[in-house]
Each structure stands twice: as C-alpha cells, then as structure tokens.
C-alpha cells in the first residue's frame, strides 16, 4: 500500500478478462443453496391436486379421504381462498388468474386443491386421495376458433364476455398499404411458432413462512425478481411490505419461467398462514411443463414489399397470440405484445404496420418472455424468414440481399419506422465475419456440387437485431413499477467491497461479472469484491433479471455507483496527498496528482482513510447507491450461419456447422459471454427441431413430461463456433449491451433457413417448426425435385 510503488495499469479481474467464476465453488462441491435444499424447523409440504379436464365445472370436491391420510394436516380449496379474497389474483398484464378455482377449471393440470402434510410423501398421497367431480364444458384450443363469432366464452368472469383479450397495433397502416400497392415485388407467408417451455433444470417452488409471533412473512422462492414479488404480495395480501421478505437463493435456471407468480406460491403462503408453520411447495417436472411458463404460441402472417432490385420498402404483420386462459404474459405494461415491433429488424423499412390480437383458449396461462426479451424471438424469426423468402423470390443470394439492405453503421442512432432508436450497429461487419469464418462461398460451391448429385445440403443465415435492457422509465413499467435497476456498493476499511444488486442471477455469473465492472471502475481486484443478490430485505430495489436486462441496467448502476464513490474518494485522496481536489485525477486505477503520476493513492488507501482519516466536515464511509434509469434500450446484434445436411431416406436434419458472430458491445467476461451464447444457441436449436407442446381437441396436452418434451442432449447439440465483433453502446456507461438471449433469438431462423435452403429443389418456401424428420420426408416424397 505504499505510495511510492508503481501501480500497474491493470486490475486483476477487470473488464475484458475471462476470470473464472467466483460462485462456482459451492456448485462444484454440491453445496448450492436451491429452494428445495432449504429445510426449516417444523416445515410442512404442499402438494396439489390438478384437473384432468381442460374446461369443466367443478360439481363436488371431497377431501375426507385426503384428510385421513396419515400426516395430512389441512386441505385448501378455492372456496377457502374466496373467503379470504384470494381465489383470484392479478397477473402482470392486469388480467387476473385463479389461485384455486371456485367452480370452473380452465386448463388441463390446473391447480384445484392444495394438500398440506408433514412429509413430502404424505402430501403426495393426500393429493392423490382428493376426489373431484367435474362436468366437462366445451373446450376451445384453437385461437382462431376462439375469436370466431359464437365461440364458447371461456372467461365468463369478464364483462366483455369474449375470448378476444385485446387488439394492439403500431405503425402507419395507410402508408404501409400504399407502399404495398406501389411495390414491384411482394412476398407473404404464414408462420406458426408453437408453444414451448423454458424447462430450466430446476422446477419452480417456494418455502412460505408466516411467523405468527412477530408478523414477519418470509418466502424463499424460485424468482427472478424478488422485489417486484414482494410489492405484488403486499398489494395482493395486504401484509405490510416491510414485514415481507422474499429470498431468492440459488436458482437453477430461470429463462423467464421464474418471473410469474404461480398459484403454488400463493397456496403455500396461505397454508403457512393457516398452519402457523413454514410450508414448502416444489413442483414436479410434469407440473412444471403442464401448468406454468409457456412461451411463444404466435400465429403470424407477414408480408414484405420490395423494389425489383431487392431493396425492402414495407412490412405488414398480423398475428394471433394464444395466451391460454388468462393473459399472464410478463411484458412491460404498455406493450401487451412485448417488443414485437422490433420486427423491422436489421433493415431500414420505410413503412411498417404490425397488429396483434390476443385470444383466450383452454390452456395454461402465459406467455412468458422465454429468453427473448419480450417477443423478440417471434419478431426476429419472422423478419429473418421473410428475408430468405424474399431472396428466394428474387433469385438472389440471401447474404447478398441482407448486405444490400442492412442499416449502415453511419445511420446510428437509427430511428426505426416503428419507433425504436437503435443505439449502435454494424450489421454488415458481423455478417461478413461470419461468412468468412464459415467460408460461405466455398459452402455455396459445395452445395452446387451436391445438388448435381441429388444430395441435400442447406445454408441458412440469420442477421438479427435484438432489443434488451428494459427499460427507460417513460415507456417501461411492470404493474406500474418503473424498470430501473440498482447497485449498492460499499468499500470496507481494508479496501474490500460488498455490493448488492436489484437483479437476480440464475446462472448468468453476476457474482463474477458485476465484480469485474466494479474492479474496473474502482481499481480493486475482483477477488476482493463480494456480490449479493436476491434478498429483498437487503438488496436495493430492482426489477430482476430477465430480458437480458441486468448488464444494461444494473451493470450500468454498478458503474454509476462506483463513479459516485470515486468522486468522494478523490476528495479523500487529495486530502491524503495534501493537494487540492482539482489537482487529483483517477488514472491507471489510482488517484494521481496531475503531472506527477507517481504521487498517488490507491483506492484501498483511500478506503482506509474514509474511516480513519477523512477530511473534516466530510461524512465517514465510502459507499454509494445508484438507481439507473436507462436512457434507451440496447440493441445487441449478430449474424449466424448454419449448415445442415439432410438424410434423404429418413428426413433427419443434422446441423453440420453453426457459426455465431455476436456483438454485445463491450464484453465483460469473454468466457461467460461464450457460455451464454452456447446455451442460447441450444435453446434456439431446440424449438427448431425438437420441442413443442400441443393440445388435442379436448385440451389434452402432448409434451407434458420429459418423456415427450424433448430437450436437446449433448448428442443433438453441435459444437457451436463463436466469434465477436464489438460495437459499444454509446449510451451505456461501459458500452455493454447484454447478451443472455441473443442466441435463443437469432438461432431458429438460421436453422430453418438452412433446411428450407436445402429443400429448394423441391420448391419449398417454408416449413413450420419444429422440423420433424417426417415433415421433411413428406416433402421429399411428395414428388421428384422440381429443379436440379
């Protein structure tokens, strides 16, 4: 700590270093602290009896047998909750959902009765012993039929008496229609993105503990947003907010599925209030797949207008959104279709018009934002498929078409016709890099050769622009709460740091990456920085982690808090250096006298002085808190190129190569960023080839367990190849954009484009995902190839 020793212009664990993760030790040693690992004295267990019917009146509930199961202590029905005003609760989109039904169930696997017992096994026996009589009602599973006149009304509780939830539109309808009328080339396509499920390896659960003695309500919960949950609980239950503590411990994957408030959390809370003991609820995988957090389910019709030499002019999109029986989407309140209107993508459409109509159906509620920043997957899928469809129509190479149309780097900040101001981008740079890495020209030559021999090989491109970091306070709120985020940073006398954030990692590595930001800003090694998240009692208020928002919001807050600290620290340094404050600058990770850099004080020396030798009249301590209201969203982007080979006999698609060039601005930890991309690409592969949830006409689910809902293994997953370009965000304190979801968003169209490209000789324009082998086989066997 001597002032004479030269300070290296490097901090251990700063931005850009691939330091190993600080949080790993407990996970490697089996000492993670997930909700189901936690055991509280006197804890009880909740299990739930669920409806086998998609739509039915409940005519009787008999719980005598359940109550006789040894160990069962209580049952909770919808009527019990109704008495407490809790049978229904608000959703994040200001609709309402049932906690437990009073008289009608509206989706298969809906929660019907809660059974509380002193053991996990007894609770399961109890739930199996509950008897419920149902009178089936007509089931509506097709959203188009739901919207047709005369359809059975599902939500009889709503005054509208309609299955049409809302209509939303944006853009210039008249101008877009005019553009289409005047255009030389148009293409149109129906695209369906089926229902899928986040399916994180840990399911959802909680331990609710109402302490009757001191009136404190504590809930350990698999939640990505502990503070928002606390406020919602306060508003819904009337419990005073200062007495509610939400603890989000280690979370085994979130991906958006752990944002909603599920009925199980509320039933467990009521059970704890009723019994005076902690109540644990952990859902099984089948319950998780069948009852919560579905994503997507968009029926899209898209049209693109262009000039005959391939310049896009206008975009028209009409979507029917299937929300299940209630709109429990997790979108910012002003955007019921999320950020779907990023759908003009990487291209400067002069005109666009987008409309979405949401429908109720007898299916579980949603859709959550599954690793997609609010419907961006749906938007990117649409535009990137349409670009390939347009390229096919124009008989132009899809890479060439994109390069011709991209918003050029000098156009940024770029205001899209649908109202977004993209912060920065270099789309051609990313695509060209991807093309070079994969040897695009070589692949096209190989394809031509293979086509002559009748072999099927395809190349697909996706050049996506994402929109993340929700979000600026003028436009973004969830149930009225603005979407800022926060960092509270405190430096101890011995120069170590504790920092708490309003976000909540579910595997993204915040304990490491936030420490790296602070290390960079404060010159203190990352090893000396402890990061905490997830306890609503101690962490500053934030809106949580989803939609790739942590780096853009809380990461920025970390920088801003650090800079506030630096400002105070500079004054202390001046005091220690016995110079005026104006003569001191922060340079090369230390406070240095201007012109005499060797006269310096480290942040550690300043920290010690903040408690032992601060200037007269100044408060002791060295800390700051920042609530960061982002001035804009950030716009990560990239270009992905996928190569597939198709087995002509079986229709099986094999991804031979996949190159992902991502640009997330400043990269905090390259190793962690690559990990996010690998995982995201796999979550993009999955719905393209494997995953879907379907319902038959009676509302029975197909894909309601891991036997049928096929998550990729290491066999299906290719060895992803990644590369980067770096185009910092001009408005973010460290130029970072966030990257958690880019790959999930960008990958599906690359894969689908590749398969359709492979099948070009058969005249295929589009195949809806997931692309099962038989879908390909049916195309191959419908007739001989049309072109050589």
């Amino acid at each position, binding site marked *: 700590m001597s002032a004479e020793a030269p300070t290296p212009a490097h901090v251990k664990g700063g931005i850009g270093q691939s330091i190993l993760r600080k949080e790993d030790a407990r996970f490697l040693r089996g000492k993670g602290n997930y909700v189901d690992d936690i055991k509280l004295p006197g804890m009880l267990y909740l299990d739930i009896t669920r409806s086998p019917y998609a739509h039915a009146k409940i005519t009787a509930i008999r719980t005598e047998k359940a109550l006789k199961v040894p160990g069962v202590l209580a049952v909770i029905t919808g009527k019990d909750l109704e008495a407490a005003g809790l049978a229904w609760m608000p959703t994040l989109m200001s609709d309402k959902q049932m906690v437990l039904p009073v008289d009608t169930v509206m989706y298969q696997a809906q929660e019907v009765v809660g059974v509380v017992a002193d053991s996990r096994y007894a609770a399961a026996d109890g739930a199996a012993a509950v008897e419920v009589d149902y009178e089936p009602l007509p089931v509506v599973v097709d959203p188009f039929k739901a919207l047709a006149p005369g359809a059975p009304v599902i939500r009889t509780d709503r005054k509208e008496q309609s299955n049409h939830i809302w209509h939303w539109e944006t853009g210039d309808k008249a101008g877009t229609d005019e553009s289409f009328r005047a255009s030389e080339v148009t293409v149109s396509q129906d695209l369906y993105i089926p229902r899928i499920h986040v399916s994180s390896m840990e399911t959802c659960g909680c331990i609710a503990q109402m302490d009757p003695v001191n009136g404190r309500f504590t809930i350990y919960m698999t939640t990505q947003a502990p503070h928002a949950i606390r406020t919602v609980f306060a508003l819904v239950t009337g419990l005073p907010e200062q007495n509610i503590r939400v603890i989000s411990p280690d979370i085994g994957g979130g991906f958006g599925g752990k944002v909603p408030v599920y009925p199980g959390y509320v039933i467990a809370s009521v059970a704890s209030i009723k019994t005076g003991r902690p109540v644990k609820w952990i859902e099984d995988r089948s319950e998780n797949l069948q009852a919560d957090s579905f994503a997507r389910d968009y029926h899209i019709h898209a049209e693109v207008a262009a000039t005959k030499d391939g310049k896009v002019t206008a975009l028209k999109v009409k979507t029917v959104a299937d929300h299940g029986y209630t709109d429990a989407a997790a979108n910012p309140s002003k955007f019921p279709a999320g950020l779907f209107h990023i759908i003009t993508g990487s291209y400067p459409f002069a005109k666009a018009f987008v409309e979405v109509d949401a429908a109720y159906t007898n299916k579980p509620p949603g859709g959550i934002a599954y690793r997609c920043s609010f419907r961006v997957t749906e938007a990117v899928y649409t535009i990137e498929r349409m670009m390939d469809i347009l390229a096919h129509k124009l008989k132009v190479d899809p890479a060439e078409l994109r390069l011709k149309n991209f918003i050029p780097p000098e156009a940024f900040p770029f205001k899209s016709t649908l109202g977004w101001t993209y912060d920065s981008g270099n789309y051609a740079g990313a695509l060209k890099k991807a093309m070079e890495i994969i040897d695009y020209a070589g692949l096209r030559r190989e394809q031509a050769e293979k086509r002559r021999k009748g072999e099927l090989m395809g190349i697909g491109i996706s050049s996506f622009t994402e929109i993340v970091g929700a979000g600026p306070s003028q436009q973004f709120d969830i149930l009225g709460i603005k979407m800022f985020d926060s960092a509270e940073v405190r430096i101890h006398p011995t120069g170590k740091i504790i920092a708490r954030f309003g976000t909540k990692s579910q595997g993204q590595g915040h304990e490491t990456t936030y420490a790296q930001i602070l290390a960079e800003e404060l010159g203190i090694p990352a090893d000396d920085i402890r990061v905490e998240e997830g306890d609503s009692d101690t962490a500053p208020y934030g809106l949580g982690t989803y939609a790739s928002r942590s780096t853009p919001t809380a990461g920025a807050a970390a920088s801003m808090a650090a800079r506030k600290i630096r400002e105070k620290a500079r004054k202390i340094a001046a005091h220690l250096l016995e110079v005026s404050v104006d003569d001191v600058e922060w340079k090369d990770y230390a406070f240095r006298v201007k012109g005499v850099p060797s006269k310096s004080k480290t942040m550690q020396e300043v920290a010690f002085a903040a408690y032992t030798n601060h200037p007269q009249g100044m408060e002791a301590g060295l800390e700051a808190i920042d609530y960061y209201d982002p001035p804009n969203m950030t716009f990560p982007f990239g270009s992905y190129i996928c190569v597939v080979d198709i087995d002509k006999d079986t229709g099986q698609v094999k991804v031979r190569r996949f190159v992902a060039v991502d640009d997330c601005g400043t990269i905090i930890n390259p190793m962690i960023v690559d990990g996010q991309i690998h995982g995201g690409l796999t979550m993009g592969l999955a719905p393209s080839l*494997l995953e879907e949830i379907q319902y038959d006409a009676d509302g029975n689910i197909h894909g309601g367990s891991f036997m049928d809902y*096929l998550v990729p293994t290491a066999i299906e997953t290719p060895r992803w190849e990644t590369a980067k370009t770096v185009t910092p965000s001009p408005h973010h304190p460290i130029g970072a954009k966030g990257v958690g979801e880019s790959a999930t968003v960008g990958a599906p169209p690359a894969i689908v484009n590749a398969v359709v490209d492979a099948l070009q000789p058969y005249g295929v324009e589009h195949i809806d995902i997931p692309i099962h082998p038989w879908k390909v086989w*049916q195309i191959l066997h419908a007739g001989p190839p049309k072109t050589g």
Partner: protein
Amino acid sequence: MIPPPFEYYAPHSVDEAVALLRRFDGEAKVLAGGHSLIPLMKLRLAQPTALVDINRIPNLAYIREEGNHLRIGATTRTNDLLESALIRKSYPILTDAAQEIADPLVRNLGTVGGNVCHGDPGNDLPACMLALGAEVVAVGEKGSRTLPVSDFYKDTFVTSLEPTELLVEVRIPKARPHQGSAYHKIEKRAGDFAMAGAAANLVLDASGKVESAGIALTNVGPTAILASAAGGSLVGQAPDEAHLAHAASLARDAAQPNGDLRGPVEYKRAMAAVLARRVLDRAVARAQGGA
C-alpha cells in the same frame, strides 16, 4: 413423483421369488432394473401391492455360450452386453441395440430380462430376439418352461409370461459361421423411443446364399413384429440388391404403426423399409466377413 406404498421383498433364490409372486397372485411386480417399473409407479400408473426385488438372487446375471446356445441371465445389465467381447464378436446385433437403448445411466441398471419381457413396443431387445430366433426360460409354480420369442409378444405390455412367473434366462441359437446380424433405430432425440427400428439376422450358406434370415421391427405396432414374410423371402436367395430391396418392402408391409408424437403412419411404414434395408446391408457385410 412419489410412488404409492408397497410391501418389499428381496428373495435370495428363484424359488423364493416365484413363491412370493404366487402368494400375491398377480398383485406383485418383479423389480429388476426398475427403469420401466419405477417410473410407472412414480406416475402412479402402476400400483402393485408388493415388489419382489430379484437383484439379490445370485447366478442370475451371466453371458456365456453353452451347448447350442448363447445364454444370457435375466438380470444381466444392458451395459454388460456392451462390454462383452463375445457379444461384439458373434452377436453384434445386441451390441448395436445396447448402444442405442436409452442412455448409459439407465443401462447400468436396466436388465436384458426386463427389456425382453416388459412388453413395451418401444423396447429394443424384443426385435433383436425375434430376429435371432431366441427363446426365453421362465420359472413358475409348475416349474420351468421354455418359450420361443416368436410366440411371446401378444399385445402392448402383454406377453406369454404369467404374472406369477419369473423370466430367468434368454437363449439365443449359438452363432454360426457366416452369420451376420445388426440393429438400428432412428429416434427424434437420443434416448427417446424409436420412430422405428429394425433388426436383421442372416446366416449364409457355403455358396453365399441366405440359409436363414430373421427380420423384426421395433415400435411400429402394438408389439415388436417379426417380419416373417420379409425374412422368408431371402431364404435360398443371394443377398443382392433386388432381394434385399424386396425384403425391405415386405418389412414395410409387416409394420402396423399408429400415428403419434413419433411420426405419422406412412412415415413409420416407410422407415420400417429404410431401416430394414440398412440393417440387412450391415448384417450381410458382417456375414460376409466385414464389419
């Protein structure tokens, strides 16, 4: 997720096990590998009164050639098939199948006996046993009996095995010179049930013609299916393109698939032919001395 309660017994001999099965008169299930039974019980789709755990019975897991047969004990683990040099050399159809069954974790406990007698049309070993012309040995209250596998599979989850009988051994005709066998299935995802699977077992005579042939199919019907006409069409013929193609199309005709999450009817039929041809090609190559 939680099985219902049951009584548990771990007998130390086949006779003790059979006595227990008799005592519970169909309400007891045998616990071997448990990777078909326990999942069913966790979903409460099976609720036996008692489990008879046969894993403590000694001398029930073996792979050996004796007399005219390859004899595999019922509690031989699927992975033991993979590790057996004898199987790889002389009965490679079983190595092929073992490689493709479920995943390596399941295979450490899943047994040959269980896979053979569970009766799920998606199990892989039944088609192999049909193609090999195998037999099973079962012990019941009346003693031991030997059943040809060709008559064993009656319906989905229904075999000739009585609920009070215990399968103790699978017997396969000992490998002959110029015999080749192979198995292959296609699945949507590793570890999933097959969209379709095919097994082929050929013995060539000294002139290189087919002396005997067994072709069988997985998961394209209520049970594994022995495509007898397909196998029969090859006997006495040269294993050439025309005959193999014809056999494959007869295999398609033998398939009786349902359309479901693993494919529509016409696809599964077509795959029966594609896969039958693939395994025939490989079996021929092996019979002729290649890999």
